[in-house]
């Protein structure tokens, strides 16, 4: 274990040197750089490399970034010159109009950024993506082998496998899932709902459309899965779900690709879990062709309310943060499914690639999707506990969403 520590330290040092190396090429003459964003490993890497471009560049990477990024970019000059966002969270910045189009900066300094990294909204580049993400199947190959089953490709097969594992007495609660009330639960519903062929809004409007057959079927499937989960599933976020998997208590789960690489590297994980750990593409549900998952990207934006010099410095620093040279580092390569040039997929990336190739739907980048997500997260827990019917829960979601959407001016 001590050796592993040394290796880790070495990797960190290496990270530092690559960042330094990138620093020389940042080409920033003057300007201010201040980053806000989420805090998972890949973003830490990008942030560290960007900050290394200059003295006094700062980063604030925190799980609460969404509570502060809009406020922190609304002032003039903005506190943060860049926010690292995903396709869900860029919407809040777009709605408040605090980020600037990047077309001119791309034209000037855009070399080394792939075309497919550019997030174009209404004809203007608003963000530069650096990684892709999706939820997909993670399973224990050894356990499935024991019950003589192939890895499931549909949620119906997942249920059958769960029953087989339970019946064989291997595990009491073989299914894992990040079903924590709130954001996570809503996200699992989104997956299942899209997989069932549903769409959250009536076409072209902000009217909710979840209280439909697809919605009811999605909830019923989630309920059926929860019967094979740890009874505390409504408190399990992806951390807790992974902990269950590491402890050898669950065998099949739908998990984020960005978490797959490090899933079994923690200390004290039993050997059979390490050996049996395997990943595969996302599953379909209800006979549909579209996988029951969503595609995500993470990328960076540049604040609107800052001077052009600051914007240019920020662009260059963030570009250095996603420099192709980072991809030479094995440790960094496994942290995510990078969209950066020179990235060769590692084994941990197969799930996300399978999701993209199977025609999964990107998480809807609509101005009012965040309100829908919040409403789902708040109102579905009642159904999962068996306190009310699926129809009632979905009616509550629509009512909660409608109230919030009216308040925010999306419906009248």
């Amino acid at each position: 274990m001590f050796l592993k520590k040394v290796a880790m330290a070495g990797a960190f040092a290496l990270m530092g040197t690559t960042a330094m190396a990138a620093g020389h090429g940042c080409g920033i003459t003057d300007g201010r750089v201040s980053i806000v964003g989420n805090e998972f490993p890949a973003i830490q890497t990008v942030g560290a490399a960007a900050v290394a471009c200059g003295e006094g560049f700062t980063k604030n990477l925190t799980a609460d970034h969404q509570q502060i990024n809009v406020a922190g970019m609304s002032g003039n000059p903005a506190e943060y010159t860049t926010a690292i966002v995903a396709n869900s969270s860029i919407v809040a910045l777009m709605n408040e109009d605090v980020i600037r189009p990047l077309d001119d900066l791309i034209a000037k300094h855009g070399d080394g950024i792939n075309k497919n990294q550019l997030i174009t909204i209404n004809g203007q580049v608003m963000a530069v993506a650096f990684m892709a993400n999706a939820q997909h199947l993670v399973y224990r190959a050894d356990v499935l082998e024991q019950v003589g089953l192939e890895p499931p490709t549909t949620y119906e097969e997942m249920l059958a496998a769960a029953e087989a594992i339970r019946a064989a007495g291997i595990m009491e609660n073989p299914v894992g899932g990040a079903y924590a009330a709130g954001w996570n639960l809503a996200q699992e519903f989104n997956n299942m709902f899209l997989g069932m062929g549903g769409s959250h809004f009536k076409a072209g409007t902000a009217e909710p459309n979840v209280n439909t057959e697809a919605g009811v079927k999605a909830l019923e499937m989630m309920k059926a899965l929860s019967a094979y989960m740890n009874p505390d599933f409504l408190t399990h976020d992806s951390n807790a779900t992974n902990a269950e998997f590491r402890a050898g208590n669950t065998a099949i789960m739908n998990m984020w690709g960005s978490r797959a690489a490090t899933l079994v590297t923690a200390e004290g994980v039993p050997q059979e879990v390490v050996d049996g750990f395997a990943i595969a593409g996302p599953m379909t549900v209800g006979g549909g062709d579209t996988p029951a998952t969503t595609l995500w990207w993470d990328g960076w934006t540049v604040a609107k309310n800052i001077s052009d010099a600051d914007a240019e410095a920020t662009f260059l620093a963030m570009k250095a943060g996603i420099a192709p040279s980072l991809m030479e580092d094995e440790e960094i390569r496994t942290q995510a499914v990078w969209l950066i040039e020179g990235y060769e997929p590692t084994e941990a990336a197969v799930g996300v690639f399978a999701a993209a190739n199977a025609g999964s739907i990107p998480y809807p980048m609509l101005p009012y999707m965040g309100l829908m997500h919040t409403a789902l997260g708040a109102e579905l827990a009642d159904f999962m506990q068996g306190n009310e019917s699926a129809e009632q829960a979905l009616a509550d979601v629509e009512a909660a969403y409608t109230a919030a959407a009216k308040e925010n001016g999306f419906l009248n």
Partner: protein
Amino acid sequence: MKNRTFFWFFAPTALAMLLFIAFPIVSIIMQSVFAPHEAILIESENCGPFGCTTETVVDQEAMETLNAERPWGRFAGLEIYTNRGHLATSEVAEAWRTTDSMGAFFSELGDLPFYRAMAFTLTYTFVCTPFLIMLGFAVAVAVNSLHRRVKGLMIFFSLLPMIVPPLIGALVLFWMIDSRGVLGQLVSWMANDPTLSLKASTPLVWISLIVYGVWSSAPFAFVVFYAGLQTVPKDTLESAQMDGATRWQQIRFVVIPHLAPLVTFVALIQLMDNFRVLEPIIGFQAQAHAESLSSFILSDLGGETRQLSSAAATSVLTIIGVAILLSPVLVRTWRDFRGRSH
């Protein structure tokens, strides 16, 4: 004291409170009666790593002129207060008309998020407070009767649950009541139900939170009562003993009346603190089962889309709740104060 002197003595603290408490309240009240402008939406072609799609976006140019004209947003009056996310007046009226029993009416109410948060907050406040006062009093009397050497040690340990940060205290307990944690195992062994989980059912989560609340606040009651016990007049107690009062009678007729003002003090502080309960809900990850008014505000601020107006409206409603809760105490203080100054 002259008004002028009073002013100079009082100015620094008043300024601090004015700037950091009074102004934010005013800004919250403003936020709660204004809502964002009606969004002007346009269709646009959006492209990214996963290809292009036609999606709806907000028309920034049009919004910019709107915002420049009226930066506070659109005046909503009390609309936000009465919508489904808050007082839900029309939903409540509807439920009142369509349900035929009180039980059905309350279960409809329980479906509305604000009332759900209110129900938990009030239950928590009014169950925790009396229990922690009783426990604190019992511990104070018991510890006070101990030998001097043990006493110091017991006071030390009795204070611990109060002094640890609420979030930490809640986490420590949360880890222990996991269905495989030591307390969770103990409970399920006592209930003779191996699958019992304290985190999975709403009543059990409420009980866990209330137990946490009593555990973490009883020491405050304890220390105040213990301090009070040191000032119980010895001669009254001795004369009561002479008159042949039993121990219980001594407590009932001498000690409790002496401590009565302290009970008011503890109750006041604890009612206020419990009404804004937040950390245990976060620590226990209990949002599926219990929302308090404070956690309700926090989730409005922390979603994918911030709902400032909604958070502000809930805040104002909470402040009104606090005022109602404190009104008996306020009236009493007013009487005291008049009694003293005359």
